[in-house]
């Protein structure tokens, strides 16, 4: 995909790697739209990004600007990589600014193991993880829940898991919001959402979701001080990365409320340029109900990643014949992608309560900010940016500048440049799996065609995305992690 010259001409350079579309470019824009990208990444953005980020700029109560991160690409409603803050008093909340996979997010776990110890057993390890962590269409989790206990998960998030033996107490310290966002209200969750998601706790899903074994290579540690604080000690060290979300439970809440908002908008006199941007005033009954249900889904996503973490520890412990603690399987961090959160930020010199939407974008709070774990308080909140299964991922930290510029937000991944159908035309899943094995990356997948769709060439160059973030000081590069084993849904 490439940007058309007409749309490109509307976005003016507004500094190094910053492009701005003035409110005069589209009727109804209340604030400018701002895209963070190098010249090369900007040129790779499809026209949908421009349409969507300017549509976001039209929403009631938006503060300062509609933002798009360098991994931005076409979504629905908001672009993926979209960030927008709305005044909590007179602004809106929009499911299209969050996505159907509520609190889809990343989790990174360190190990005390070296590649030399893991490599000889990587196939055995990946096979065991594939068995232990259900993935793909129709996957069912291993945790049997009553409806009552599922409702507790909605309110307690990862805390419920730790209390029930699926994790360590210190895990909670190393999660965005301690693995439990305030404001969850199960009374606004439909019975349909409960029945759709209740049996899926501990499942990976499909699409771009994965569980990956990674290693930090020689030259892969860019900031030794921050790396050490995060538990990244030396080249050859092995890590486990998870990317998954709230599964059918969150998807159903998105479906339910998109439908409700679509019908409710006329009551509030709100018109939007794209039906996927359906929204309601944050303080309205519909807005508050969605916020309560959406937060319940966000908490279930923390629980999902926590239960998977428990399984990962069990598998490592079994394969290597040692307790997970002695193997050093400590949480580095868990960070959300698809949320709207009530946060306080400074706007024109005064503090405001904002509903910050991050869709395919990561929170990146800087050093000293609230909710950054004490162990990381001096370096900033860890930021985990997932790349493609072939090329690796990145670990960064948030910055003070991101707090000023982007409501403490940064990119979330490499961002697609090619459709799934195109990718499947270029490579077969089984061929790619064989090629990757020859390059030392063992892949197990529930769907072979799904593997082809996730080929590295379908994504932007992750290092180019990270370079922009680092140059703009929206987050600071710490380490690069390379895959040696991957489980795909």
């Amino acid at each position, binding site marked *: 995909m490439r940007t058309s010259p007409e749309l490109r001409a509307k976005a003016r350079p507004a500094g190094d790697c910053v492009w701005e579309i003035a409110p005069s470019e589209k009727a109804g824009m209340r604030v400018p739209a701002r895209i963070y990208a190098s010249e090369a990444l900007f040129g790779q953005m499809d026209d949908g990004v421009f349409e969507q980020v300017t549509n976001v700029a039209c929403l009631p109560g938006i503060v300062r600007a509609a933002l798009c991160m360098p991994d931005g690409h076409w979504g629905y409603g908001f672009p993926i990589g979209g960030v927008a803050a709305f005044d909590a008093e007179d602004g809106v909340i929009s499911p299209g600014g969050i996505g159907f996979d509520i609190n889809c997010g990343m989790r990174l776990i360190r190990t005390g193991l070296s590649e030399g110890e893991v490599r000889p057993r990587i196939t055995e390890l990946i096979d065991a993880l594939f068995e232990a962590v259900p993935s793909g269409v*129709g996957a069912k989790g291993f945790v049997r829940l009553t409806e009552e206990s599922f409702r507790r998960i909605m309110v307690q998030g990862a805390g419920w898991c730790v209390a029930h033996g699926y994790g360590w107490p210190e895990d909670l310290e190393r999660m965005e919001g301690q693995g439990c966002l305030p404001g969850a209200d199960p009374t606004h969750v439909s019975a349909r959402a409960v029945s759709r998601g209740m049996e899926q706790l501990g499942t990976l899903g499909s699409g771009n979701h994965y569980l990956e074994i990674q290693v930090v290579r020689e030259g892969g540690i860019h900031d030794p001080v921050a790396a050490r604080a995060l538990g990244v000690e030396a080249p050859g060290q092995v890590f486990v990365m998870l990317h998954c979300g709230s599964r059918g439970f969150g998807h159903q809440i998105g*479906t339910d409320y998109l439908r409700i908002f679509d019908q409710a908008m006329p009551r509030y006199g709100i018109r939007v340029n794209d039906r996927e941007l359906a929204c309601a005033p944050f303080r309205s009954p519909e807005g508050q109900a969605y916020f309560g249900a959406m937060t319940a889904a966000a908490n279930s996503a923390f629980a999902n990643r926590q239960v998977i973490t428990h399984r990962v520890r069990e598998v490592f412990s079994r394969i290597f014949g040692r307790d997970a603690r002695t193997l050093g399987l400590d949480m580095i961090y868990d960070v959300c992608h698809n949320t709207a959160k009530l946060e306080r930020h400074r706007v024109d010199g005064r503090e405001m309560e904002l509903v910050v939407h991050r869709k395919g974008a990561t929170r990146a709070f800087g050093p000293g900010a609230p909710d950054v774990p004490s162990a990381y308080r001096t370096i900033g909140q860890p930021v985990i940016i997932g790349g493609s299964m072939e090329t690796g991922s990145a670990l960064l930290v948030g910055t003070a500048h991101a707090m000023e510029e982007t409501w403490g937000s940064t990119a979330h991944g490499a961002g697609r440049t*090619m*459709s799934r159908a195109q990718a499947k035309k270029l490579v077969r899943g089984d061929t790619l799996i064989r090629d990757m094995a020859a390059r030392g990356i063992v892949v197990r997948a529930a769907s072979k*065609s799904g593997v082809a769709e996730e080929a590295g060439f379908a994504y932007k160059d992750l290092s180019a995305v990270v370079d922009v973030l680092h140059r703009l000081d929206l987050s600071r590069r710490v380490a690069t992690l390379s895959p040696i084993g991957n489980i795909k849904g």
Partner: protein
Amino acid sequence: MGHYRFLEEVALADCAVEVEGRDPADLFETAASALACLMVDPATLSITVERAVTIEAPQLDLLLYDWLSELIYLKDRDRQVFPAAQVTIAGKGPFRLDAIARGGTIDAEHTTLGADPKAVTFHQFVLEQTADGWRARLVIDI
């Protein structure tokens, strides 16, 4: 039955499909088939389940949205996929759908899996009458 084709340039990370049918019921049946093909290879699914579905909606396009949302819901709740359906539609707003959906339960041993749809989206969501019948454009979030 009508026909469908997946569109390559409409959705980058998701899946867009154009569905045509001679009338709304035919289109709804075809859309169900397209959705099932997205999820699994229907040839690897034992057709053992028959399920009655009734849905009401104020507009015809929302009836389609709710029908496909119901099929996605059944995939997650019961792990069942329905490549075939017999649909009747009544009313002129509100509309009512009565369907007999035929399909099977996903069997990890034998069913070839495809994508795992999250939701039908309203992005570029269109249901319209054409000179030859009815056409819909759907973007499925996967």
